[in-house]
């Protein structure tokens, strides 16, 4: 278990979270290195199939980071993402995975420290949950069933 670190995919909006990640870097902020950032033109582009595919392909956790509510560059993209994330969470429950493995966050491009905080928060949450049940069989040596 001590060796294991979660794989987390972050779908980040270009206008906020992606810029916030940049800012976090410029500010030399430390955040866990296990976050894989995927840039989106807007979180409104995020699709339930893509969220599930990330988990199926080996991610232990996934989050979508969009603009603060009311601040979407495309007006409603982040609200659409919020609904899709909620739907994907329900699907995860039906599939038998913890819905907590998926989350939606909102932040602005100037919130570099918040980006680092979210990365930290999500890493802690997934570490607590352990490896995704889909990955466990490949890591029998590391964790229990």
């Amino acid at each position, binding site marked *: 278990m001590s060796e294991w670190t979660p794989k987390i995919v972050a779908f980040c909006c270009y206008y906020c979270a992606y810029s916030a990640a940049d800012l976090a870097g410029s500010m030399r902020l430390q955040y866990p290195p296990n976050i894989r950032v995927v840039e989106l033109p807007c979180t409104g582009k995020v699709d*339930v*199939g893509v969220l*599930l595919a990330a988990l*199926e392909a080996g991610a232990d956790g996934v989050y979508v980071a969009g603009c603060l509510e009311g601040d979407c560059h495309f007006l409603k993209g982040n609200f659409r993402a919020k609904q899709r994330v909620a739907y994907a969470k329900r*699907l995860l429950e039906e*599939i*038998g*995975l913890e819905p907590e493995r998926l989350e939606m966050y909102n932040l602005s491009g100037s919130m570099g420290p918040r980006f680092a905080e979210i990365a930290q928060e999500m890493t802690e949450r997934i570490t607590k949950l352990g490896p995704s049940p889909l990955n466990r*069989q490949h890591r029998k040596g590391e964790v229990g069933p």
Partner: protein
Amino acid sequence: MIVAEQKPLAEIAEMVKDAERVLIVGCSECVTVCQAGGEKQVGILGTALGMMRKKEGRELQWEGVTPVRQCEPEYLEVLDKKVKDVDCVVSMGCGVGVQFIAERYPGLWVVPALNTKFGGGTVEAGVWEERCGFCGECILHKTGGICPIIRCSKSLLNGPCGGSQDGKCEIDSEVDCAWQLIYDRLKGLDRLELMYAYTPPKDWSRARDGGPRKVVKEEARI
């Protein structure tokens, strides 16, 4: 269009539990519009079923294909080769689609992934409502374009029952009384005299009650 809704994942997973290779067939017509069985939903269902299997430590090989429509044999030709390699076909079409696939491949196990609901339309993004009861003999010209067969809970033909309260149906305060809608519309059109016209009992043998129906258009036959 036909409006359908996906069955719970657990129910679909149970139907395909013995299959190792599954073909998931979507439909690009009605069920794509009501977001139940289009190309996108095929992908999501395949991924979800795959994840459920993976969780059990088993593999599910699946492939998705979404023909133009399932309710016409010529569009099912694209499945001919694909079904040879699978144990089971999951149809994400309406009940018609499931049956057309089953009829085309007598030796193949075909299961439905959707619950086919009704004939209706989109009233707002993400909301579909019933509008047609497929009764076989349209009377919308008598009722101002509002169907009492399907929108009145009792399918009454000559005005509302005593359960019509404040324009709503007694079965649910969210459901409009169809006859109130008809009255309001005819009044607006200044054709209230239609309300007085007596409609005799309907010949239900032209609806589902007469058994399975068939339409033949001789000039269209080849």
